[in-house]
């Protein structure tokens, strides 16, 4: 009937195809990366690899201390950052969403989020390692990672809190409950899963970072497990970096195996967070 009418529809079809192609270009490298690392590294991974120490200057043996180190660092980061982060988010959302102080805090969080990880490493080095004399230690490393993760916790907690509809708060206040009672009994129980998701995402990020731990805690070759928080530890990201750039003659498959271990850990934790988030959405009764 009308040639003009056909054109927009064809245009849409072509646009959809083109954009779909571009999306594939964006997305396929992920699958490639996962595939390649898996295929080339899986042969080295066995129980031995995961539970013994490295020997011969990192060339042989396993990655056990690095795994333990990564887990310790991640737990420590959460311990330092979650209380402050959740409290800050509660303050921003429930207590003074519109004040000038709140805007300053929000701006501060935004900028903390944008600071490059290496600058955090620098800060950690200057303050925790040197000025406060903690030395290169678990303490310094976890504090640095916690600082880096603080904005993530604040932002995701704030979002989880905001997802609770205002009408519940109103109903609670109209019944004579105080602000804190409302927060504690109505808002928090219904946002706890969202908060948890944010924490888990922070964990996965902290586990994969290298620059902040480079000078604050990570040891190049430390086959034994740490005895105190003032000890250094090995960590998977640092380990991968070291065997890729500092130590020659390590088998390529060993390096892939370390990368694979790190990927498993990080993406595994991420997958947990994603599935919790999906469950929240499905089970939401309001």
């Amino acid at each position, binding site marked *: 009937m009308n040639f003009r009418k056909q054109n927009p529809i064809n245009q849409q079809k072509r646009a959809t195809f083109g954009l779909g192609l571009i999306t594939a270009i964006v997305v396929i490298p992920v699958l490639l990366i996962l595939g390649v690392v898996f295929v080339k590294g899986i042969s080295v991974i066995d129980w031995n690899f995961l539970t013994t120490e490295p020997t011969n200057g990192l060339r042989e043996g396993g990655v056990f201390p690095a795994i333990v180190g990564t887990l310790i660092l991640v737990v420590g980061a959460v311990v330092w950052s979650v209380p402050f982060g959740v409290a800050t988010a509660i303050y921003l959302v429930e207590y003074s969403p*519109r004040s000038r102080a709140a805007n300053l805090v929000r701006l501060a969080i935004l900028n903390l989020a944008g600071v490059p990880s290496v600058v955090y490493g620098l800060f950690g080095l200057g303050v925790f390692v040197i000025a406060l004399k903690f030395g290169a230690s678990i303490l310094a490393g976890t504090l640095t990672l916690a600082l880096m993760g603080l904005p993530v916790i604040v932002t995701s907690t704030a979002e989880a809190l905001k997802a609770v509809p205002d*009408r*519940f708060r*109103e*109903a*609670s*206040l*109209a*019944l*004579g*409950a*105080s602000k804190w*009672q409302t927060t504690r*009994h*109505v808002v928090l129980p*219904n946002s706890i899963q969202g908060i948890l998701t944010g924490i888990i995402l922070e964990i996965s990020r902290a586990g994969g970072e290298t620059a902040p731990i480079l000078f604050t805690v990570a040891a190049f070759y430390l086959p034994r497990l740490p005895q105190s928080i003032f000890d250094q530890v090995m960590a998977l990201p640092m380990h991968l970096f070291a065997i890729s750039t500092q130590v020659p003659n390590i088998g390529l498959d060993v390096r892939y195996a370390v990368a694979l271990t790190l990927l498993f850990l990080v993406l595994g934790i991420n997958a947990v967070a994603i599935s919790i988030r999906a469950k929240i959405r499905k089970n939401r*009764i*309001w």
Partner: protein
Amino acid sequence: MVKEIIIKSLSVSYGKKQAIRNLSLSVEKNEILGIIGPTTSGKTTLLTVLNRMIDTIPSAVISGSVSMGDIDVLTTPNIHSLRRSVGMIFALPVALPMTIRENVEYGPKMAGEAKGELKTRVEESLVQAGLWDEVHDRLDTPALKLSGGQQQRLCIARALALKPKVLLLDEPCSGLDPISTSRIEDTLGQLKNDMTIILVTNNPHQAARVAHRTAFMLEGELVELADTDTLFTNPADNRTKEYIEGKFG
């Protein structure tokens, strides 16, 4: 007649908008006062002043005086205990995301009532609200699974659990079917013996059915306040007459 609430020259504005102008009225104890009027007449604002929920709107500026018994509503520091003695039912039922029992317990629990008291309080309130028969065997199931009419009665039970002196209802039946509506209206009739009730409604017929006296508000002003029969059959002000006849609204 004992006056429960005395409002003198109340004015409320939000920024540039004037929501209530120089309003004065008194509410008598144990009466059901209906308030009718079109949407922007300030009815809801009036209710939020009475239980200080207007505090949640930072841009509100209030002048005048409101007294309830010996409490000066506008300046009292004890707003939490004020809100417990002035219950509020919103237009859309807002059951809290918890079990039925926890919903009704919520007010008294936050007020620090003893645990032993709570169980009887829950039953009493649900009976008073006319919901006990329907939910007594599933008190520990989520409240949000109830129907709209049931949720609204739950909200009433929730407010009653605090044994309020005054009950404010803001268009409580606007989203409900006729059966739920009449059940709630019956409940109000029984409740008035224990408390004073202010019922804001968009539906003049509801006021005609339920209220002893009715007030007509327009654009923030109190136009007329009279016995319900008088207001509806022989209104003193022309604007009242036109609203009731449906000429605007």
